[in-house]
């Protein structure tokens, strides 16, 4: 008698286990399907991250966007520099002005980044050289020094904050490029065997002016 009762019980047991397994597979499938749906946010975040990084074609250093470069930037340049985003519609706006747009993103995810817009203009300084020293009023990474000492006077060494940047025992004369640091205020001092006057040295450096802007990156795959 007991042997016959077990047969329908086995059928019911198989049915229950199969149904449950099917349900679990459906759940797992749903979970995987919804997990792959969030690529827009990821690519928008990543693209914005790369756009503002210091290696980006738009920036001169991290989060500082060069105004003239951004004017030339377009969809082609975007594809060239960031090929990872080719199959998605992308829109980049800077302070509500379109910078580059490929495709027509209708929804998607938008990431905002705070950047500084930089405009660089050359500034020229003609120090009076009363003490053979001059302090640059702005910090800069590079400067051009033009030396034109009077006849009979030899400028042998130029130091930036004590560090020797130019040296020629025979006398420095002409234009020289200086590598400076953006993290220190630079004082140039001149070692000369005679008095220097105003106009004997001219420093040209790039003065940058920055304004704040919002960079919006929209990605719609």
């Amino acid at each position, binding site marked *: 008698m*007991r042997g016959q*009762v*077990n047969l329908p*019980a*086995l059928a*019911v*047991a*198989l049915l*229950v*286990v199969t149904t*449950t*397994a099917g*349900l*679990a597979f459906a*759940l*797992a499938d*749903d*979970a995987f399907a919804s*997990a792959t749906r*969030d690529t827009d*946010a990821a690519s928008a*975040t990543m693209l*914005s*991250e790369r756009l*503002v990084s210091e290696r980006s074609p738009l920036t001169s*250093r*991290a*989060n*500082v966007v060069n105004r003239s470069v951004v004017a030339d930037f377009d969809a082609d340049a975007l594809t060239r520099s960031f090929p990872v985003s080719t199959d998605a519609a992308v829109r980049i706006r800077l302070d509500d002005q379109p910078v580059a747009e490929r495709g027509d993103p209708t929804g998607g*995810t938008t*990431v*905002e*980044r*705070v*950047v*500084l817009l930089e405009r660089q203009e050359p500034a020229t300084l003609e120090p009076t050289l009363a003490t053979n020293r001059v302090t640059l009023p*702005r*910090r800069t990474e590079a400067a051009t020094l033009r030396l034109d000492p009077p006849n009979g006077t030899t400028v042998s060494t130029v130091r930036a904050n004590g560090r020797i940047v130019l040296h020629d025992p025979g006398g420095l004369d002409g234009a020289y490029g200086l590598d400076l640091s*953006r*993290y*220190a*205020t630079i004082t140039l001092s001149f070692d000369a065997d005679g008095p220097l006057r105003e106009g004997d040295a001219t420093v040209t450096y790039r003065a940058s002016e920055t304004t*704040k802007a*919002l960079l919006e990156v929209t990605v719609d795959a």
Partner: protein
Amino acid sequence: MPDRAQLPLALVEAAVGVVLVLAVGTAFAFGVPTPASEPTQLDAYADDAATVLASEPPRHAGTTRLAEVARSEAAFEREAAALVRRTDRILPANLLYRVETPHGSVGYPVPAGVAVGERTVATGYGPVTIRVWYA
């Protein structure tokens, strides 16, 4: 007969199997909570503010603006107001912020229970932490 009252063994096994399969299934049903997009955007704001402040020249002496406020008590007292103005200026208007330095903090108190974006910058005089959240 005590035998008759017993559940068929197959059904007991099936019940155990169902429990096991459902245990795995619930992991998919509830899943790992995915981070919402808000903290990501807030982190981006905090990152940007920190990067901008950390690479800006100081108002008086030092290497950068953040290094200047972290430098000493006196420097912090002197620069706190300017730091508030500058941070206000950099961040979008819908954000509030707090900047913590080794010598004190400026900005607003961080409220409990809101999403906060955070970024810490190491300066030569100690860490400076910037927190931002939606007003």
